C-alpha cells in the first residue's frame, strides 16, 4: 500500500506539472493565432553592372503591403485572411546579344510604368490548435496582365505520440494577357495549370527538438514561356520558347531546437529540388531566434541557394538547328546566392513591432562546384521590412 501511495503521489505531481504546462502552451498558441498583422516590404534590385547594351540600368523596385486577420471563428475552427498589394516599377532583362569575342551583353527593357498586383488569400481550418486538423485554402492574384486562382487542402493527423503525418494538394489556373501584344508581336493570351501534391512527417525528437521531412510534387502544363523575354538564336531575335510541360520534385527537411526555458531556438531548413527541365537546386537556411530582456527578440538568419541550369538555357544560341526550346532568362542559368537577414522584434502589451533587412547577393561563382559560364542579368537585391501585430486575445 505505501508503494501505491508513492506512485499516486508521483502521478499527482506529474498531472500537476502537465496542468501547469499545457495551459501555458495553449495560451501561447491562441494568443498568437488571433491577431491582426501588417507588413511593409521595400524590395530594391541592384542596378545592372556593367550597364546594359540598351535599356534602363535601374532594375525592379517593389513596394509591398500585407494585411492579415487571423482569428478563431467557432470552437476549434479558425479563419485566416491575407491581402497583399504590390507596386512594381523599373526595368527587367529582355534578351542578350553576342558581343565581341562572344561576350554576352544584356539588353534591358525600358523603365516600366507603375504596375500593381493585388492578392487575397483565405484559409479555413477545422481542428485548429489540435493534433488533427484540416485546412482549406484559396487565393486569387490579379495584375494588369496576369491572373492566378489557386485552391488547396491540407490534412494533418497524428500517427503516434511522436509522429505527425501531413498530406495535401493544390491546383492553380494562371492566365496571362501580355501588354503591347500586337506592338511587340507577343502571344495575345495564354494559360497554364499547376497541380501540386505534398506529404510530410514530423517527429518529436525530444523535449527540445522536432524534425520534419516532406516531399512536394508539381506538374505544370500550358504556356510556361515568358512573353516579355526574347532570345538571340543564330543572330535572329526570337521569342523565349520553353517546353509546355514541367514536372518538379522538392524534398525538404526542417529542424527546430529550443535552448533554455524561453531564451533561444535554432532553425535549420534544407531543400533539394529537381525538375524535368534539368534545373537542380540546393537551399540551406539557418536562423537563430534569441530572446532578450524587456520583451525584445532578435532573429539573424543566413540562406544559401545554388542551382544548375535548365537544358535549354544559354545567354545566346549560335546554332538554331540544335534546339527547339530556347531561353536566356537568367533565372534558368547556373548561379548561387547568399543572403543574410536580421529581424528585430519588440513586444509592448498586445502590440508587437518588428523591423529587418535582407541582403541577397547572387553570382555564378556561388554555385556548388563553381561556374565560370556567364549568366548576365543575375540579380542581387536589398529588402527592408517593418511589421506591426496586434494580438486579439
Amino acid at each position, binding site marked *: 500500500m505505501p508503494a501505491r501511495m508513492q506512485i499516486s503521489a508521483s502521478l499527482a505531481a*506529474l498531472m500537476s506539472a*502537465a496542468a501547469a*504546462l499545457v495551459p501555458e*502552451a495553449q495560451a*501561447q498558441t491562441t494568443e498568437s493565432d488571433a491577431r491582426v498583422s501588417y*507588413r511593409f516590404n521595400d524590395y530594391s534590385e541592384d542596378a545592372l553592372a556593367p550597364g546594359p547594351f540598351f535599356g534602363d540600368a535601374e532594375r525592379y523596385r517593389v513596394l509591398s503591403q*500585407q494585411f*492579415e486577420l487571423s482569428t478563431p471563428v467557432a470552437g476549434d475552427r479558425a479563419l485566416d485572411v491575407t491581402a497583399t498589394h504590390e507596386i512594381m516599377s523599373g526595368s*527587367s532583362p529582355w534578351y542578350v546579344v553576342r558581343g565581341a569575342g562572344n561576350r554576352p551583353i544584356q539588353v534591358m527593357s525600358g523603365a516600366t510604368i507603375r504596375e500593381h*498586383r493585388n492578392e487575397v488569400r483565405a484559409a479555413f481550418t477545422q481542428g485548429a490548435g489540435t493534433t488533427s486538423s484540416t*485546412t482549406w485554402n484559396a487565393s486569387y*492574384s490579379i*495584375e494588369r*496582365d*496576369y491572373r*492566378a*486562382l*489557386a485552391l488547396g487542402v491540407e490534412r494533418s493527423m497524428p500517427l503516434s*505520440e511522436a509522429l505527425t503525418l501531413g498530406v495535401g*494538394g*493544390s491546383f*492553380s489556373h494562371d492566365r496571362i494577357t501580355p501588354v503591347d501584344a500586337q506592338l511587340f508581336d507577343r502571344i495575345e493570351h495564354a494559360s497554364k495549370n*499547376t497541380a*501540386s501534391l*505534398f506529404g510530410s512527417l514530423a517527429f*518529436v*525528437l*525530444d*523535449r*527540445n527538438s522536432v*524534425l520534419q521531412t*516532406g516531399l*512536394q510534387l*508539381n506538374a505544370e502544363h500550358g504556356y510556361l514561356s515568358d512573353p516579355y523575354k526574347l532570345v538571340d538564336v543564330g543572330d535572329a531575335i526570337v521569342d523565349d520558347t520553353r517546353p509546355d510541360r514541367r514536372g518538379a520534385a522538392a524534398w525538404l*527537411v*526542417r529542424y527546430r531546437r*529550443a535552448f533554455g526555458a524561453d531564451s533561444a*531556438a535554432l532553425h*535549420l531548413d*534544407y*531543400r*533539394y*529540388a529537381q525538375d524535368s527541365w534539368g534545373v537542380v*537546386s*540546393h537551399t*540551406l537556411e539557418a536562423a537563430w531566434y534569441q*530572446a532578450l530582456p524587456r520583451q525584445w*527578440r532578435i532573429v539573424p538568419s543566413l540562406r544559401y541557394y545554388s*542551382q544548375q541550369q*535548365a537544358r535549354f538555357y544559354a545567354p545566346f544560341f549560335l546554332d538554331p538547328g540544335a534546339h527547339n526550346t530556347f531561353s536566356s532568362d537568367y533565372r*534558368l542559368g547556373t548561379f548561387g546566392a547568399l543572403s543574410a*537577414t536580421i*529581424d528585430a522584434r519588440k513586444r509592448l502589451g498586445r502590440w508587437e513591432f*518588428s523591423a*529587418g533587412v*535582407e541582403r541577397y547577393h547572387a553570382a555564378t561563382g556561388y554555385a*556548388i562546384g563553381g561556374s565560370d559560364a556567364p549568366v548576365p542579368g543575375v540579380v542581387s*537585391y536589398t*529588402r527592408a521590412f517593418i*511589421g506591426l501585430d496586434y494580438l486579439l486575445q
Partner: protein
Amino acid sequence: MRASLPCPRRRAAAALIAIALIALGGCAATPVQPWERGRLARWDMRWDPDPLRAAMAAHTHFSKEGSNGEIGAAGGGCGCN
C-alpha cells in the same frame, strides 16, 4: 592510388546526411510525454513563426530563382520579372 575529385553533389549529400544524423540523434531518447512539451509549443519553435514574413520571402525567392517547393499547399504564380 586513385585521386578523389571534388564532386558537388556528393559534398551536398554528405552535408545533408550529417544534418539528418545530428537531428535524428535525439530519436534514441525516451518518448516525450505531453507535459514535457512546453518548449515545443513556444512561438519560436513553430515551423514558420512569422507566416507573413515567410510568405513574402518565399514569394521573392520564387520570383528570382529557377526552382521552388515547400511543405504546404502551393499558391498561384505571378507575372514577376
